[in-house]
């Protein structure tokens, strides 16, 4: 795989584009919005301070780095800590905090590879082909993971969808 150095401007662009999705992703490991934000912030600070050689798809590298850092952060905390309802990662346009919290919880319950595909696709705005390239999995596998993930999330969020009339 090709490796290249990412400029500070490139790192900032990556942060603007994928930062929020990465916080959501990290939150599924650490179950604490503030800690998730810290994890993502630290990864990008490290990228800014040192010119790390990145693979051809920097997003893949950043997702891996965030995952590892979040898992490390989780080791220092209580594993099954309850979600902090005052610091939700997701905010809905209509301001419904409960559905945001439910989504966060539902994402945490997904298998890791399914969760990754959903976050990359929905909040990082990547196509399934891009997700496949980033995760190194075949496109068909990625598509299946995505479909299963949506099915599970749909079941979990059904009550909130009815409330909002979607």
């Amino acid at each position, binding site marked *: 795989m090709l490796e290249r150095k990412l400029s500070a401007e490139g790192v900032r662009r990556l942060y603007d584009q994928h930062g929020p999705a990465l916080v959501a992703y990290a939150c599924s490991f650490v179950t604490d919005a503030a800690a998730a934000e810290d994890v993502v912030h630290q990864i990008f600070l490290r990228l800014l301070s040192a010119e790390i050689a990145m693979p051809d798809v920097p997003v893949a590298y950043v997702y891996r780095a965030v995952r590892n850092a979040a898992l490390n952060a989780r080791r220092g905390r209580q594993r099954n800590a309850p979600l902090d309802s005052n610091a939700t990662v997701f905010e809905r346009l*209509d301001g419904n905090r409960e*559905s945001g919290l439910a989504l966060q919880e539902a994402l945490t319950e997904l298998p890791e590879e399914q969760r990754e595909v959903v976050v990359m*696709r929905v909040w990082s705005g990547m196509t399934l082909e891009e997700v496949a390239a980033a995760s190194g999995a075949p496109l068909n596998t990625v598509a299946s993971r995505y479909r299963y993930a949506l099915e599970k999330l749909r079941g979990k969020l059904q009550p909130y969808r009815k409330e909002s009339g979607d």
Partner: protein
Amino acid sequence: MENHDDQFEKYLGEFQPRRPRALPEPAIHWQVSPRRLAAATAITIALGASLWFARKKSELSGGVIVRKDTALIPESKLVAQPLSLLLLTQLALEAPEQLDAELTKASRRVLPDFRGKESTLRVLAKE
């Protein structure tokens, strides 16, 4: 089914993940190589030394700066060249007729002009 997924995907898109705090502005890191540092030090020392010597020289000469300002020298002195004895001897030996011409030219430069209307000799002669 796909339409179903699209609708749900759209619903999920209505949730916005929290935007992390902004990255700090990049600090300017000066990367000074030892070579550059050595060169800069050498230049600074050389400049300092030359400045010190210039000041010392100025103090020794009583603070008076000697300038070779050609504009202050009278034109007559600039024109008047001292006769070279060597040149005149050579001319006398090799070309006596040129020696006369050179002497005439030199006398016009060196001696006061008596041919002008206001020349010193003419004024004296009138008196």
